[in-house]
């Protein structure tokens, strides 16, 4: 008998591990000019694995509803399998980065002096610089604490927050009916629940993905994966911040990690189950993608800008406006002829729509009306 937690581990390895690996193979292959830092590509991939899973599931449940759960699992898995297979030539590049990251670093060597756990590198606890040793220990304590909190909460703390419960209920509803439709009132006749959420479906669909997957193993009530998203993207926020500030100075990067971690609201954000760390990371990523797209004129950076701007829009309504601001900033500051600016901006907008922006168009035209709905009391 497979335990519910083991099913979660399987799902996590598949979605956040294998699917993210397929995305990273793709990113490494198309980044021929190597304009994106390898570590940033890994972080992007780790973020996109789960997101693209939710996006594929969205299109499948919307356009091909009512199929058996296994069909959805197989189609999504097949997509990533094909994506990985088509880009397998970059496996060595990805593997080299992972190997470099995951090997045990000897801190006594001068070149490893400034290496920390937040670099995603395993380290030996010794450095001739005692202050850096303290940071080393601090980074280990912080990372271990977050890991412990993450796992302890996953196992021991059920979903209790109001919003999170609503997402989880909607996730189960999608899985139960295997259908996404655009209706004026999202009313669940079986329970009389009414889903009032106005945001894109990416986050609840991660819960749907878990329910569909867990059903294969007879675990219909699993919600470990949906709960894990909070901490997972919390980690990615830390790694991203650390990575960029470490380029300036290690002290600055360590201090920033500590300050971010101990800011009360952020501590709550990465420990209590919610959508926030997921959407906040995607906003960070879309800002980084904006910088890449303006700095390096190539299609990969444009596509990434569209993907991340679209991702944060599909996760949360606020992201729709951020994506508009991002496109505006792109048009204003991208150095090219006006004609090319417009063509590229249209390309980015099209990708944003494809990445989930279309949900809002559908919701306005055929569904709840989104933020334009006229709230009627009958």
């Amino acid at each position, binding site marked *: 008998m497979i335990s519910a937690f083991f099913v979660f581990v399987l799902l996590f390895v598949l979605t956040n591990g294998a699917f993210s690996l397929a995305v990273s193979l793709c990113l490494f292959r198309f980044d021929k000019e190597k304009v994106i830092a390898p570590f940033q590509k890994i972080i992007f991939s780790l973020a996109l694995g789960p997101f693209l899973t939710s996006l594929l599931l969205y299109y499948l449940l919307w356009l091909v509803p009512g199929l058996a759960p296994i069909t959805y699992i197989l189609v999504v898995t097949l997509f990533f399998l094909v994506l990985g297979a088509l880009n397998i030539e970059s496996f060595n590049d990805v593997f080299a980065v992972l190997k470099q990251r995951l090997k045990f670093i000897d801190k006594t060597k001068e070149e490893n002096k400034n290496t920390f756990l937040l670099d995603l590198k395993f380290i030996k606890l010794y450095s001739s610089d005692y202050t850096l040793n303290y940071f080393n220990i601090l980074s280990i304590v912080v990372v271990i604490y977050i890991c412990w909190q993450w796992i302890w909460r996953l196992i021991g703390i059920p979903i209790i927050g109001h919003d999170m*419960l609503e997402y989880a209920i909607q996730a189960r509803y999608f899985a139960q009916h295997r259908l996404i439709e655009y209706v004026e009132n999202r009313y669940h006749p079986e329970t009389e629940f009414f889903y009032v959420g106005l945001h894109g479906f990416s986050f609840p669909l991660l819960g749907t993905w878990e329910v569909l997957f867990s059903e294969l193993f007879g675990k219909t009530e699993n919600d470990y994966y949906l709960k894990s998203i909070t901490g997972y993207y919390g980690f990615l926020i830390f790694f991203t911040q650390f990575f960029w500030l470490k380029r300036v100075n290690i002290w600055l990067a360590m201090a*920033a990690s500590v300050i971010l971690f101990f*800011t009360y609201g952020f501590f709550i954000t990465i420990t209590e189950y919610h959508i*926030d760390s997921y959407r906040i990371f995607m906003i960070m990523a879309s800002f980084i993608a904006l910088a890449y797209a303006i700095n390096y004129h190539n299609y990969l950076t444009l596509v990434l800008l569209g993907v991340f701007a679209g991702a944060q829009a599909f996760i949360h309504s606020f992201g729709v406006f951020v994506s508009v*601001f991002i496109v505006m900033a792109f048009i204003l500051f991208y150095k090219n002829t006006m004609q090319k600016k417009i063509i590229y901006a249209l390309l980015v907008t099209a990708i944003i729509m494809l990445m989930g922006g279309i949900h809002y168009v559908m919701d306005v035209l055929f569904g709840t009306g989104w933020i334009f709905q006229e709230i009627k*009391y009958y």
Partner: protein
Amino acid sequence: MSNKVKLYLYIFLSLVFICVVYFFQTQVDETVTDVNLIHRRIETPIKFWMNGYLGHFFNFKYLGSINWLLIPLALFAFLKLKYFNQEWKKAIALAYILSLFLISVKGFFNARYQLTLLPITLSALLYFLWLYLEHQDLHTFKKFVLILIVGLVFSNDVFGLLFLRESSQSILQQDRQGLVERIVNYIDSIPAKIAYYENKSRTPAYPVIDFIRKDLPADAHFLVNNLPMLYYYSNKKGIYYWCGDDTYYSENGRSRIMENRSIDEMMLFIKDTLKCDYLLSTPSYNKYDPKFEEFTKAYCKPVFLDLGEFAVYKITREKGNYSIEPMAKVLSKRLSKGVPPFYVTPDDVE
């Protein structure tokens, strides 16, 4: 004035400024009774601006006490260093400012929205601070300044824990103790807190759900006051409602319960039209509308209360003078001693 003296002066002025903000943050307007505003700590005009519109910089409780430093530091980077001289920097600055503006205008009511840009704000302000120290030739002060900021963040957490509580109840009860009293009370409560958490780990997450599953009829039908856990953790049905907006939801959309109805008519409507026998709510939620609270006191007999403040009420046709206070007192005693079970039924009171 040397750069070193200037730095000390800026640090001193910053600390004074933080103290001034704390002063305004701790002010309580005893005439305001709107729980929603008090809970969000935006009940006075100045707090409405600080924790609402300008919350990203001045909502110290949730976002820390240093975010406002981004304003002078970014201005320094812009004016002195000509930092924003590249297109990608201008693009990010524009997207950031527009996002921040939108958060201020539309997200002022919810601290969660103000958090949206926090990692970017913190990274930017620390980076600009670093540039400032380098520009002023204050290299030897870098570690000192960073440690000082880490210290500010820690002390802000402690200050927030002691003085910037969002507990609407404690504020409504005019809980305005002095510094020493608060610290002593907090320390006194630690053993009970430890006992509580030790026992809580052995208590079901939702005793109220256990009660609903096991002790109520299979066909019990609820009026659910903004507590979606019923739908997730039980197979019971219930009309989803929020008294704060007086809105309930059905397949037709939204409708009202309290509008144009007396509390007697509300009872008849809830019992006969909506067919609800039970109310799932919390005493705090009931307070979000005085009329709804009045209705609960008149027609809702409390039958269960747990440590999460989750309560089940039996909706009766007989008007009474129902109160959950006696049950709350028993529960409070159990919690203060750390002795389970952390739920109470009317039998425990009698």
